[in-house]
């Protein structure tokens, strides 16, 4: 597609439920990133994928969070047993490749998660 696509754009769930957020990166981009943005806060890095390399999961806040990337393209971020503090906008970004900050990131519009 022309840009990074994320779905759903809004998700309201009850505490304790599992949620899945989807990201479809720009075609040909080998690097994919997930960030979280809470109200009034900056972007918090969660995880990134680069080609066939093992993902960098160092930003995942707990073992309730996981992500996978199938076929080097679409990625799914899963949050199990959601908590109210998980409420945030989850942003996905992609870039041509993962380098030392030399390339710009292209962001999707985000998935706004509200946990009641």
């Amino acid at each position, binding site marked *: 597609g022309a840009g*990074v696509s994320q779905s759903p754009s809004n998700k309201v769930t009850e505490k304790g439920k599992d949620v899945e957020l989807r990201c479809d990166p720009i075609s040909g981009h080998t690097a994919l*990133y997930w*960030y979280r943005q809470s109200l009034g*806060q*900056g*972007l918090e*890095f969660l995880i*990134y994928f680069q080609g066939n390399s093992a993902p*960098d999961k160092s*930003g995942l806040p707990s073992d309730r969070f996981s992500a996978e990337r199938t076929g080097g393209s679409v990625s799914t971020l899963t949050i199990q047993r959601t908590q109210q503090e998980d409420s945030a906008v989850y*942003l996905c*970004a992609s870039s041509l490749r*993962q*380098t*030392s*900050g*030399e390339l*710009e*990131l*292209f*962001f*999707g*519009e*985000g998935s706004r998660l509200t946990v009641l």
Partner: protein
Amino acid sequence: SQKIEQNSEALNIQEGKTATLTCNYTNYSPAYLQWYRQDPGRGPVFLLLIRENEKEKRKERLKVTFDTTLKQSLFHITASQPADSATYLCALDPSTNQAGTALIFGKGTTLSVSS
């Protein structure tokens, strides 16, 4: 500890003036620094990248400086317009190797330009 800070949470200026936003970092030695714009309810959009060997970079009404001694980048918008009102984020790669890691972002400065 490693930090990236944008000094002002909010900046209010009048149309036509120059807006100057500050980004400071500690305990990093980034080879590049990036600036993004984020409008409410939208994802960030890339504006400019500056390399460590570049002191200044310009794009239309935008100017970015990068002082690796002060560990600071300044972002200027000249002849500001109400349409420039948005949150501006600085970002850098915290690693020192070529493989790199994910960009880390400051919390942003929300600019409001009044007419």
